[in-house]
């Protein structure tokens, strides 16, 4: 390679590095704070399922805030949806001898070794948001079935007990998809007037949901009375497709999660309802539990943070 070419490549690499460093800088400063006070500061290792998901970002933010208030140090790692990476991160925490671990599991089964290893090493584990097969020291989260129940109950109420529903599922096989289906099925079992026209996955994704809804409009058209989507991203995709087809006025759409975009849509009357899952509540509770366990204070083994239905009537409680 000639020197000129080297300069080219080096320049581009430096540019990429600069971007990356600029991005990382903020995170490192928030994680590593100067040690203050005489007593040893507690250190909590956190392994998060996926920091590209808005909901997990909210949990992480709440944890950081609560950790600052309680004056403990958080080391947050992103497992990027890989259970394998998650187990490695927990191994690193064990080697670092952290005082407690907060685990936001990627998967029910595959993330279980992470819990087992930490418990075996004598480090308490607090699961947040999702469950693992192995039993952790404590759990903070919500019962996902409840969200499916609340959403379907709302649809039954709006349709006065009779009508046709479409169900947009999350990524098949994930705990949230299975439980959100289960909760809805419980309500459907008691309401024979509600018929499920079709259920199909849109993989939590807005663009995929939009395509699916467009195809459903072609097949079922005026027969559709309501759409239940396992998350708000998909619900928003359905809303946009229905609006484009000028059908939204006649069809009830409900999502789950209460992300910012969905709340704005509920306020504007575009989305009928969403189910609020309290990310901040889960994150804060997880940190509180970790601190209590590490200090050997009494604690609750399981803390369930309730879901809430959000409609136009109570939207002001949820928009800051």
């Amino acid at each position, binding site marked *: 390679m000639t020197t000129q*070419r080297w300069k*080219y*490549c080096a320049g581009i690499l430096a540019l990429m590095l600069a971007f990356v460093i600029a991005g990382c800088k903020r995170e490192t400063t928030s994680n590593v704070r100067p040690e203050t006070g005489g007593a040893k500061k507690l250190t909590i290792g956190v392994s998060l399922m996926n920091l590209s*998901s808005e909901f997990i970002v909210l949990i992480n933010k709440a944890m950081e805030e609560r950790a600052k208030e309680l004056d403990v140090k958080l080391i947050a790692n992103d497992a990027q949806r890989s259970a394998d990476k998650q187990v490695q991160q927990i191994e690193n925490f064990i080697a670092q001898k952290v005082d407690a671990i907060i685990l936001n599991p990627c998967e029910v089964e595959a993330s279980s070794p992470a819990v087992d290893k930490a418990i075996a090493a004598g480090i308490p584990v607090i699961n947040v948001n999702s469950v693992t097969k192995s039993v952790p020291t404590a759990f903070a989260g919500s019962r996902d079935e409840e969200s499916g129940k609340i959403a379907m109950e709302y649809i039954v109420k709006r349709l006065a007990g009779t009508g046709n529903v479409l169900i947009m599922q999350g990524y*098949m096989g994930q705990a949230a998809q299975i439980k959100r289906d289960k909760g809805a099925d419980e309500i459907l079992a008691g309401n024979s007037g509600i018929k499920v026209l079709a259920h199909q996955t849109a993989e939590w994704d807005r663009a995929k949901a939009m*395509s*699916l809804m467009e*195809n459903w409009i*072609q097949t079922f058209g005026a027969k559709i009375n309501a759409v239940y989507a396992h998350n708000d991203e998909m619900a928003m995709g359905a809303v946009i497709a229905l609006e484009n087809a000028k059908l939204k006025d006649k069809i009830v759409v409900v999502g789950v999660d209460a992300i910012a975009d969905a709340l*704005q849509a509920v306020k504007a009357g575009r989305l009928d309802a969403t189910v609020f899952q309290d990310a901040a509540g889960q994150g804060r509770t997880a940190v509180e539990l970790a601190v209590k366990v590490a200090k050997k204070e009494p604690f609750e083994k399981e803390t369930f943070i309730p879901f809430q239905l959000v409609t136009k009537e109570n939207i002001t409680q949820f928009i800051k």
Partner: protein
Amino acid sequence: MPCPSETTKTAFLARILKQYGIVIALVLICIALSFFSPHFMTFGNLITVARQISLNGILAVGVTFVLLTGGVDLSLGSLVALTGVVAAGFAHPGDYPLFVPVIAGILAGLACGMVNGVVITQGKIAPFIVTLGMMTVARGLALVISGGKPVSNMSPAMTRLGGDLLGLPIPVLVLCGTAAVSWLFLKNVRLGRYIYAVGGNENAARAAGINVNAVKLFAYTICGAMAGLAGVILAARITTGQPNAGIAYELDAIAAVVIGGTSLSGGVGGVGGTLLGALLMGVINNGLDLLNVSSYYQQIVKGAIIVGAVLLDRKNAK
């Protein structure tokens, strides 16, 4: 011994199949679908199919340039996310006129494509590795710029880009426009023909005095710019810039190009086939939803039909 008229007949049939194998596969699938679902062959549904293939179509047309030179671009999906986030950032109501977010998105894609091209040609690194690196870098940049959250609150002018114009979806019109320009370019412009020459035989092209590096750089840059255009269209269609959008889009785009008869080793193929490939994939997607095939089986059927279609095409191309 077959009589001569019969051999010419089979030769004629073989030639037809060779040229139109993919068209025949498409027609067969369409006939089957209209038989199974009364909703398939309606104007509304065909417009829906066109709208749904527009994004993959634009990406596929762009990556056709790269595949024709014998290269590959794996960064498309991440570029769609990055450029969508960039465009959405400039598209808040009352901030800038519409052309600013559109140009910003396209330029962001163009710049990334240019970086791909420069590193591949000047660094002499395999395109697979360089664009794989760009795939990760662009995804990271999208997450950094957006803070991990969707960039929403877009101006109505911007979201209208995802809607209709005179009864036709704007994304479809954009696809038709880019495909037409690309087709004319590859057919009639000297640089377009150089792309085929470089993909066909790089050394021969160099010996003939073609600046091979410049041609490659051009192909990656155009591919990036079209990914930017697709990112802008996607953001307009789903009314947000999503940092997680576009995962595995590059595979769909490359699949469409290859189904359409462009060789993965370069030099052979073109935009017309690419459009047919994208159409075939779109029809399968739409049809499986119309028939309400279970989510698990959809993936199996989709894969089998794609490989089957290419098999039909290649078998007869011999």
